[in-house]
């Protein structure tokens, strides 16, 4: 058995999302602010 603690959750999590919350994405390998994603994707049409 892994020697680790398992957090107990009371059902689905309520996610507090923020455009100002930078994170690292294991799929793209990039660490970005969500607000900067359209520019990084080179997708000017998503800009207002």
């Amino acid at each position, binding site marked *: 058995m*892994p*020697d*680790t*603690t*398992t*957090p*107990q*959750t*009371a*059902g*689905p*999590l*309520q*996610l*507090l*999302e*923020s455009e*100002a*919350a*930078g*994170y*690292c*994405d*294991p799929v*793209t*390998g*990039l*660490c*970005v602010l*969500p607000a900067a994603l359209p520019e990084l994707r080179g997708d000017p049409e998503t800009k207002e």
Partner: protein
Amino acid sequence: METAAQAPTRLSIDVWSDIVCPFCYLGEHRLSQAIARSPHADRIDLSIHTFQLDPTLPASPIATLDHLSATHGVPAAQARAMESGLARQARSEGLAYEVDRPAANTLDMLRLVQLGNAHGVGWEVMRDLQAEVFSANPDAYAPATLARVAEKLGIPVEEIREVLDSDKYADAVRADHEQAVRLGARGVPFTVLGGRLGIPGAVEVGQFLAAIDQAWEQVDA
């Protein structure tokens, strides 16, 4: 004798991170500040969990910027600009952050964090190893560095050696990762408060503090 009814209310905060993750490094720092400012600080149980961002990273260190360009297709100038922005942000918050730093596979480091958890110092192992990486210690990933960091935190040398000489805790690293995905994490850092509130990413100190207050109201209800 203390009964369950008399036990003081406590709030669990669980954080998933990787060593090489800049926003984890920043987010943990901000969360620590938020906890320190919280009136509930002495009744918060903080736990670190591991999340290996890139298992394809080689065992031998390479330049982080080269890795971003070669593996993830980010033009060199853009990679440096992104990293420079992160460096400015980290330094403004009092953290050492070198753009030109080594990157390597973090599995051994994360297994050591798991060993740290078994000794109640997993958070400290994560933070101290991140400090080695983000200050650009060229030997940050060397077994001797890992052993030095862990030993300084009071982990017995023979247990450190046993972990570094084997794949012990690799299953715990995988289990942590799978649990984060099950909880809805699409990246790291990922923070769960009271088993109810999830925070993707490194939010500001004030947002962590507000989330602690919100979670506290729920556990104390």
